[in-house]
């Protein structure tokens, strides 16, 4: 019997009395519900204003229990004495509950939030008016073309970018550190970067900020620099930053004629106004790619002697080319801000733009964009073009539409595939969705499946017991294994001479989806004893080809004496040669070296072949076992004595003789196999 819902979609969602009926409640879901998948259920809770957390704690209001709830969650329920609901109870709660607006606490909280939003929106309004005034004044005063864009046509992202540090969402601690470092800069410069200071930062002449896009790294860097009285000079991926250019353009004290001609302030070669206090912001340093050869190295050289602060910004801290930079700059990793940290800011902006956006929709959007504030703002501003309000479902669709496509690792794919949810009856993934998972990495996923498919406790047999269970388990394993075998046949067609790439979807089904559909279940990454592992096939395969090559060399040398091919050599000769070439060294030690070498010479074997011969052994002749019985003295004795004398050689390697390889023509079209003989 498969686990899970007996009747997916059988129960309708009741009409709620209040659209925010679950407000103020937090829920934990565990186990499988009968009519809803996990995702649908959590969506329901969120839609009606509830909060969904993954682990139960004393502050959880309700735990919604399904079949086969996790044991750790059950324990937590007991410990914290939590209220539990079944599926019907949960639906009932939605249908009947009316949030207690008379409750003072709740009321005050809501009011307070609203007030804060209103105040912040007013503040925004005021600031914009000020700016507008300033711009107008400027335009009147000077007959110059202003390059400021009127506020109304600015992107929201620019228009509402934070003006004070308080407005930056999240990463407060890191921003404070940055601020401190910039404030301390003059004194640390004076002390020659010897005094570490409060955050141990003042010995670095540069800071490297890393973190995912859209969380305010650049904004924070600019703000901090401005607030500390520096003039930021920003160079980003749009500027060429090769070695030479970094060296030249960052030479900040070089004034250019261009600036002087315009009769305004002096600017440097890069066209940036120069004050006595500048701060260099190198944005997107991991984007210094092929065109910017030597850029990172030049940057590091610059950092070593700079007299102005340098702030570098990158996305991927682990990138190989950032290695030298990480060693020379203080690292400030920025994290994705929590939805709660962004919520009020986004609500303020929405309020100011006269959009009706409920808080749970904002949360949904933030979650969908993975806390990328910039993306959420862009999404909202696009939405504003056609609508003034957005509800839960629309929000969901919008974030789905703007979903960032991330490539899962084969590990993740295997976890998902073999996990208990992908094939459970409440799962809503279509065959296409499952195939999509395979296509995250079509060459590795099948290998991972083959390595790990036996590590689960299949959900299909969890209601059976005794011999019945064992038999069914074996049957499922058999089906899965034969499907994997099918998959390999398809793979041979795909990678064969005719390259049937159109069979990839079939390969996805045979190699990945079908086996998983039999053996999915908990275990292996879901708390089972067998963790998922990296496929052994790769290592074993390269070992096989290495030994095969060595065996082939050996056969070529022995060919003058021995007629057998390499398979026969391995299967008959090596076991037969073993007592003459290896065994004496195990039994007699150094004294046997002489006879062993004569025997090797008979077959034109050299010292390396001896190693191969030992390496090829199995079972009681396995190399580890054998080498343990040969003393190091014997082995060095063998090497020394072998090297001391001349030996017959079957042939010289062509490369040793300096032969020039003959070029083969391209393979050309394959011959027509169907032609009459």
């Amino acid at each position: 019997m498969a686990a899970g819902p007996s009747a997916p979609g059988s129960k309708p969602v009741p009409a709620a009395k209040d659209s925010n009926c679950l407000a103020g409640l937090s829920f934990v879901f565990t186990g499988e519900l009968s009519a809803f998948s996990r995702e649908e259920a959590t969506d329901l809770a969120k839609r009606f204003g509830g909060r969904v957390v993954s682990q139960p704690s004393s502050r959880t209001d309700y735990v919604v229990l399904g079949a086969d709830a996790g044991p750790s969650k059950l324990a937590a329920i007991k410990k914290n004495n939590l209220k539990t609901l079944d599926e019907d109870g949960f639906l009932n709660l939605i249908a009947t509950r009316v949030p207690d607006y008379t409750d003072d606490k709740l009321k005050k909280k809501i009011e307070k939030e609203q007030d804060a939003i209103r105040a912040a929106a007013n503040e925004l309004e005021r600031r914009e008016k000020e700016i507008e005034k300033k711009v107008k004044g400027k335009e009147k005063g000077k007959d110059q073309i202003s390059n400021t864009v009127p506020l109304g046509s600015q992107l929201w992202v620019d228009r509402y970018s934070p003006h004070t540090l308080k407005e930056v969402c999240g990463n407060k601690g890191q921003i404070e550190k940055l601020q401190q470092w910039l404030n301390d800069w003059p004194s640390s410069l004076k002390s020659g970067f010897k005094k570490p200071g409060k955050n141990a930062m003042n010995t670095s002449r540069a800071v490297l900020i890393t973190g995912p896009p859209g969380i305010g790294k650049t904004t924070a860097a600019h703000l901090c620099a401005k607030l500390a009285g520096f003039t930021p000079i920003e160079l980003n991926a749009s500027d060429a930053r090769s070695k030479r250019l970094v060296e030249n353009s960052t030479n900040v004290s070089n004034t250019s004629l261009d600036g002087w001609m315009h009769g305004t302030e002096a600017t440097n070669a890069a066209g940036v106004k120069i004050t006595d206090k500048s701060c260099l912001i190198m944005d997107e340093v991991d984007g210094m790619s092929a065109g910017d050869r030597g850029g990172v190295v030049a940057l590091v050289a610059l950092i070593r002697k700079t007299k102005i602060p340098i702030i570098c910004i990158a996305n991927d801290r682990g990138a190989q080319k950032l290695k030298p930079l990480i060693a020379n700059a203080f690292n400030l990793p920025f994290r994705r801000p929590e939805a709660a940290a962004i919520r009020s800011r986004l609500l303020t902006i929405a309020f100011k733009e006269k959009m009706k956006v409920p808080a749970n929709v904002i949360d949904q959007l933030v979650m969908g964009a993975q806390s990328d504030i910039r993306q959420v703002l862009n999404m909202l501003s696009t939405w504003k073009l056609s609508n003034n309000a957005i509800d839960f479902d629309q929000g969901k669709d919008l974030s789905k539409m703007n979903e960032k496509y991330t490539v899962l690792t084969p590990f993740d794919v295997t976890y998902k595939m073999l996990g208990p949810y992908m094939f459970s009856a409440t799962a809503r993934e279509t065959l296409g969705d499952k195939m999509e998972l395979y296509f995250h990495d079509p060459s590795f996923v099948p290998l991972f499946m083959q390595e790990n498919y036996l590590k689960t406790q299949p959900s299909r047999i969890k209601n059976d017991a005794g011999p019945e269970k064992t038999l069914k388990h074996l049957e499922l394993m058999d089906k899965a294994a034969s499907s994997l075998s099918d998959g390999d046949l398809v793979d041979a067609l795909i990678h064969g001479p005719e390259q049937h790439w159109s069979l990839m979807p079939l390969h996805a089904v045979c190699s990945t989806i079908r086996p998983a559909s039999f053996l999915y279940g908990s275990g292996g990454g879901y708390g089972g004893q067998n963790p998922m592992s990296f496929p052994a096939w790769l290592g074993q395969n390269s070992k096989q080809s290495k030994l095969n090559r060595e065996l082939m060399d050996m056969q070529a040398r022995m060919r003058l004496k021995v007629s057998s091919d390499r398979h026969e050599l391995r299967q008959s000769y090596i076991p037969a040669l073993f007592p003459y070439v290896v065994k004496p060294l195990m039994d007699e030690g150094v004294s046997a070296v002489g006879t062993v070498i004569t025997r090797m010479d008979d077959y034109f074997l050299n010292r390396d072949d001896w190693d191969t011969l030992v390496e090829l052994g199995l079972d009681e002749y396995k190399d580890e076992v054998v080498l343990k019985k040969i003393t190091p003295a014997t082995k060095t004795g063998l090497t020394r004595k072998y090297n001391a004398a001349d030996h017959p050689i079957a042939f010289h390697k062509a490369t040793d003789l300096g032969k020039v390889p003959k070029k083969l023509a391209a393979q050309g079209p394959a011959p027509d196999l169907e032609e009459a003989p």
Partner: protein
Amino acid sequence: MSLWVDCYRPKSLDELHYHESLSARLRSLAASGDFPHMLFYGPSGAGKKTRIACTLKELFGKGVEKLKIDQRVFLTPSRRKLDVNVVQSNFHLEITPSEVGNYDRVVIQELLKEIAQTQQVDINARHRFKVVVINEADSLTRDAQAALRRTMEKYMSNMRIILCANSTSKLIAPIKSRCLLVRVAAPTEEEMVTVMKHVASRQNFRIEDESVVCEIARDAEGNLRKALLVFEALKMQTGSLNGPITIAKPDWETYCIKVGDMITQEQSPQRVMDVRTKLYELLSHCIPPTVILKTIAARVVEKVDESLKADIMHWAAVYEVRMRVGNKKIFHLEAWVVKVMSIYKHFFYGIDMGSFE
């Protein structure tokens, strides 16, 4: 001193011990002056290469015994270097195209064209043509085999090809029809015993206990090479070759047997994974997958009930075919192992539960 197998290998057709009618035919073919392309096939250790060498000697005289190995390097369009070892005398050369895997077609064409374009320089040579021996012809790709067809006809004037294979089943029909097929069957036990007696007399000792030699012959299953190697090993171990002896199996065979026992002892996912590690070990140590499957299947069949034997062998055959067609041998080996476990367990509980009721 080399091993006896190599020491006492027959050098001419007259010295061969068995298949006398075949020897006679080869002798007259070599004498006729009209020597065809040939295909020698038969199980390993039956004496194919020995017979080829003897025939060549009959054709060209003692000159063919002066062998040298010449390593040739080729550069593929994808700039990979390929080493090809060519064993050659003045009159013939021998190549093993399976050394270069998928590039066998171009390499063979390149080598054959070279030979075909050069005339025999030696005025005293008995024949105008050179002979090319192609080893492991059954592992030639289909492309390479197809390319051979034309070559075999075109260069008939100064080249003959001798193919050497274990079975003809993997050769395409056009190739077979262009060759004179020579089957070198495995020697019978009596024939092997004669050879071993001959070796003993050359080695100057007398076989006192004939049953020991018979036992060796039976164990070798038609592989004379194996028989002689075992014969020598036993002689070295016991000294006298008397009395009851146990023939030590080679390392890989005992290992396969262990795997077979693992399958019959326990049937569980964990056991399959243990078996998988062992299979990887066998594969990576250059034991061909078909040999592994055959040996393990033989062991399993030995252990199980009569009624299961046919089934297990059937599935072994099915998965052997799949192994040949597919890429990753382990997938199919493992699928067979799981299949056998499932069959075995079902049978086991079938009896168990039947007896309870």
